[in-house]
């Protein structure tokens, strides 16, 4: 690991220069520093900042500090009761040890598990723009079928962010130009020709909070994660569903997918198919087909299209039962 200068931030008004990194739980950054994928000359430890609380918002939602640990958020009584999909997603991710370390802000910013990104012996446009993407014709079983480009097909690895996408979370960030709010839906970028840029944060901006809107009365939610192992494995396909059923009809639904997209993937196409329709399997299948209509399989990941469809149908069936 390359040596670095270590400082502790005492207030959120910390300006970063491009060679610096914020350090929170460390579960992504320290790992990538050991692989020399990340080589910051300076690391700013933000763990002393007062961003470790979960608080109600005046409008009945929840304000989650960027330093709230994944395990604490997952087991928070209000999250379990009213944002079930988020608790389930968090508990499906990583291991208990890692969840005790990983933070809310860090989870949103965690980096892809693409083998080529994580190995500096390979080219990677995300790591070194313009160097190439061996995943296009390489081992791409874990790669994305939605949102990819000829420069990058790496999946976003987060479960938490998928649930937050379905919950319509808002990211609060603070930088040199002040504070701003970014709807999570507008937070992530697809790779296009700039796969090194994964989100809209400016280099000097720090995530301070995530807010979750108040769920409408009668809302139910669920996260289903499909993977090679029963525990402690990244998603091959996952579905987060937040739904409000009135009578037998779906009044409002939000659907997001993990493991299949280059970013946590909100499917408005699937939502549009379902809203106002009876909650039954035929409609769930139509929604799943709509969600994956634009999917582009690579050599080894075509199975993800059917897997994601099944995840959507299964999750909708479970949450509306």
């Amino acid at each position, binding site marked *: *690991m*390359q*040596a*670095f*200068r*270590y*400082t*502790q*931030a*005492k*207030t959120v*008004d*910390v*300006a*970063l*220069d491009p*060679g*610096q990194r914020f*350090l929170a739980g*460390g*579960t992504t950054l*320290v*790992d990538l*520093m*050991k692989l*020399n994928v990340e080589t910051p*000359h*300076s*690391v*700013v*430890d933000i*763990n002393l900042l007062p961003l470790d609380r979960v608080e109600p918002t005046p409008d009945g939602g929840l304000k989650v500090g960027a330093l709230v640990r994944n*395990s604490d958020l997952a*087991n928070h009584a209000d999250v379990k009761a009213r944002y079930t999909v988020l608790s389930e997603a968090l508990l499906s991710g*990583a*291991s*208990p*040890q*890692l969840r*005790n*370390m990983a933070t809310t802000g860090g989870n949103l910013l965690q980096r892809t598990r693409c083998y080529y990104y994580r190995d500096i012996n390979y080219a990677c446009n995300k790591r070194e723009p313009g160097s190439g993407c061996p995943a296009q014709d390489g081992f791409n079983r874990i790669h994305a079928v939605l949102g990819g480009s000829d420069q990058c097909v790496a999946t976003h690895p987060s479960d938490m962010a998928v649930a937050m996408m379905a919950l319509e979370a808002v990211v609060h960030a603070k930088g040199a130009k002040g504070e701003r709010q970014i709807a999570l839906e507008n937070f992530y970028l697809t790779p296009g020709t700039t796969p090194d840029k994964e989100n809209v944060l400016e280099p000097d901006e720090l995530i301070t909070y995530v807010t979750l809107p108040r769920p409408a009365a009668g809302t139910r939610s669920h996260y289903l994660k499909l993977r090679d192992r*029963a*525990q*402690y494995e990244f998603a091959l396909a996952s579905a987060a569903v937040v739904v409000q059923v009135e009578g037998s009809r779906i009044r409002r639904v939000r659907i997001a997918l993990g493991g299949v997209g280059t970013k946590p993937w909100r499917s408005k196409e699937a939502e549009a198919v379902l809203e106002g329709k009876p909650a039954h399997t035929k409609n769930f299948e139509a929604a799943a087909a709509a969600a994956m209509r634009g999917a582009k399989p690579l050599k080894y990941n075509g199975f993800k299209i059917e897997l994601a469809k099944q995840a959507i149908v299964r999750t909708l069936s479970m949450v509306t039962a």
Partner: protein
Amino acid sequence: MAQLGAAGVIATAAPLTHGADGFVEAPTADAPAAEAVVDPVPVTLRVNGVEHHLMLEPRVTLLDALRERLNLFGTKKGCDHGQCGACTVHVNGRRVNSCLSFAVMHQMDEITTIEGLAKDGELHPVQQAFLDHDGFQCGYCTSGQIMSGAALLKEPIGPTDHDVRAAMSGNICRCGAYSNIVAAVQQARDWPSGRTRSAQS
């Protein structure tokens, strides 16, 4: 040695300059809220109730500090990437992967390793349970397994063997002692092993 060259980067009030190794040296004026330090830096670690004063480079992980500087070899290095759980220790009572944390981040923390688990010559119930149930073969993962099992006693986990397997999933055992590990953890929790359905309903 090219990587070690960066260790020479120190705080400076000068404008951005390129060091001899091409490294950009950042002026501290850009980070007024942060306090610049050069490495190695003084680090105070409180481990198993004993305070240790060390000089460490910031890049020294908590795991390496425990093993290489404090001679606490009970905590094991397996994958060194947070994937195997052999390095599990408690920080303020919570289990973490010590390989993915820098020692310098833990100055005010209460750190417990396997060496600090037994009290007054009495094995911790999880240690005793691992003996009772033969919860190991080669033993390399055992410290991490026991530290995970001990932390788990205070976590909100369901009663079944399945719940224990999920809660212990961050600890890999290449010998495959899993069934005995589950039985050991269940004994320490005062749950009979073999429980497959929730007793809460």
